[in-house]
Structures are given as C-alpha cells and as structure tokens.
C-alpha cells in the first residue's frame, strides 16, 4: 500500500495524486506541496502586490481546496496549471475582501494612473513596478506575460471576458512602458 512506503521524490504527479485520493497519503501530499508551492507562491505573491505573508495564507487555502477537490482532477490540464487556477481564485477572493481586484475602474486611462512614488532604484525593480499596477490589469499581466495563460484561460480563471483580458493587458503594458521610460530618463540625467 502506498501509505506504508516513502514515495520517491521523482514520482510523477499522477502517482502522488492517486496516493492522496486513494489512501489519503500524507507523504504523497507533502511531495505535491513541496513540488508545486514555489511556483504557486510566486504567482500569488505577484497578484497580491508582493505581500508574502498573505501569499502564503492564500496558497495554504488553495492546497486545502485543491486536495479536497482532487477527485475531480481529470488531467485535462497539468496538475500545476490546475492548482494555479485554484490559487488564483483564492487570491481573487482575498483581494475582494480587501481593497478589491477591480478597485481601479477599467476605463481609467493609463496616463492618468500615477507613477509609483519610489526612489529610482526601487522603480528600476520590475517586481515593484508590477506590484504598483492596478490589481485588475496586474492579474492579467502576471497570468499572460509571466505565466503564459491565454486570454481565454484568463477569462475563465478571473471570470472576465477574453476581450476584457486583452484590454487589461494593453493597459498594464502601457503603464509599465511609461514607468520604465521615466526610469530610463531619470537614469540618464543622474550624475
């Protein structure tokens, strides 16, 4: 029985998933958590504007939701993608309880969004710039340009239309370019 032996660290996800579903194997669950949490934390941390502590809480809740729903995992997407979707939904719930993912109205022009008021070194840090984006377009940028989701997948995950996803991505890129241009110009005038 799987629960009686130590799983190999190279064991495939489907073997570990079967062990958790069939035997509620703690060892197999540990392997899955250790294997996939680093990526989940990176995605969620970016969605939550670099709030590491909140990101850990969100990913922990995502694992609870994911393991509870593991029987429904059909393998249509990879387990990593499946868990990422769950983690993103939990992160959205977290944001809705806070300032809100859609706090910035979509029709605000990128030019009207103020540039982050950090010193030059901080603004050169792209992570910090991403964290300064309005949460709606930040989520789309993270999922599309960093995680490689399609607009259709983003639409399903975030509960928005694919067209809205494209518009948010346009806005996020425009803001980032503007801020990066400001950074570059300020760098040029620096002694």
């Amino acid at each position, binding site marked *: 029985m799987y629960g009686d032996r130590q799983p190999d660290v190279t064991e495939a996800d489907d073997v570990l998933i079967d062990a958790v579903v069939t035997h509620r194997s703690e060892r197999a*669950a540990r392997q899955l958590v250790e294997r996939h949490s680093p990526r989940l934390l990176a995605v969620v*941390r970016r969605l939550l504007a670099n709030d590491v502590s909140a990101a850990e809480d969100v990913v922990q809740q995502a694992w609870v939701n994911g393991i509870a729903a593991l029987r429904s995992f059909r393998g249509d997407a990879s387990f990593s993608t499946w868990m990422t979707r769950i983690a993103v939904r939990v992160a959205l719930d977290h944001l809705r309880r806070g300032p809100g993912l859609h706090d910035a109205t979509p029709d605000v022009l990128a030019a009207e969004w103020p540039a982050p008021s950090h010193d030059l070194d901080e603004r050169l840090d*792209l992570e910090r710039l991403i964290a300064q984006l309005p949460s709606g377009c930040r989520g789309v940028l993270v999922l599309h340009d*960093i995680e490689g989701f399609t607009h259709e997948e983003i639409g399903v995950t975030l509960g928005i239309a694919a067209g809205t996803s494209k518009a948010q991505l346009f806005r996020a890129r425009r803001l980032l370019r503007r801020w990066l241009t400001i950074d570059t110009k300020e760098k040029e005038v620096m002694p």
Partner: protein
Amino acid sequence: MIRDDTQPDDELQQRLSALGREDPLSATFTDRVLAELGERELVRRPRGGRTATRWWAMAAAAAGLFAAGIGLGSTMSATRRSPQPTQPSSSVEVNVPHVGQSEVWF
C-alpha cells in the same frame, strides 16, 4: 513612431522573462499546510515519534501491570492451597466421622 501596446516590446518582454518563476518556501510552510490538511482529515496524519514513544510507554506499563497481576494471583493461589499445619491438641481429640459414619466419638 507609435508603439503597439498589444504586443510586448522586446525590452519589456526580456525583463518579464527574466523574472523568477518560483519563490522559496519558508521553513514552516509545508508543515503548516500538512497540519491543516490533517486537521480537515484530507490526509492521514502519520504517527509521530512522540506519539509512538507514548504508545510504547503505555504498552509497557500495561504489560507490567499484567505481570504484576499474574504474580499476585499466583501468590494468593499458592497461599490458599498450601496446607495449614494443624496445631496438635494437647487435651482433646475430636474425631470427625467419615462418610457413612454416624457417630462422633472422643
């Protein structure tokens, strides 16, 4: 030149690609997740070392009590079975009639 914001420019794409895809786990993160999964009975918690030690201590104590019980029982049984030496009567002998005898004589 007007930029096409629907496509990432090379510089931005390059910088986004250079971002790390994984964050390091804190020392306690995995244990925290597993503890919650265990509390919700989504996974079976393995018997920990401390729990196993406690179990063995209880088993040893139970075995000790059992052995002590057997020893005490044996002692009591032996005491009950051992014949009591009769004190010789100095003056009167009483004869208890055997089965079939009807008389008692002195």
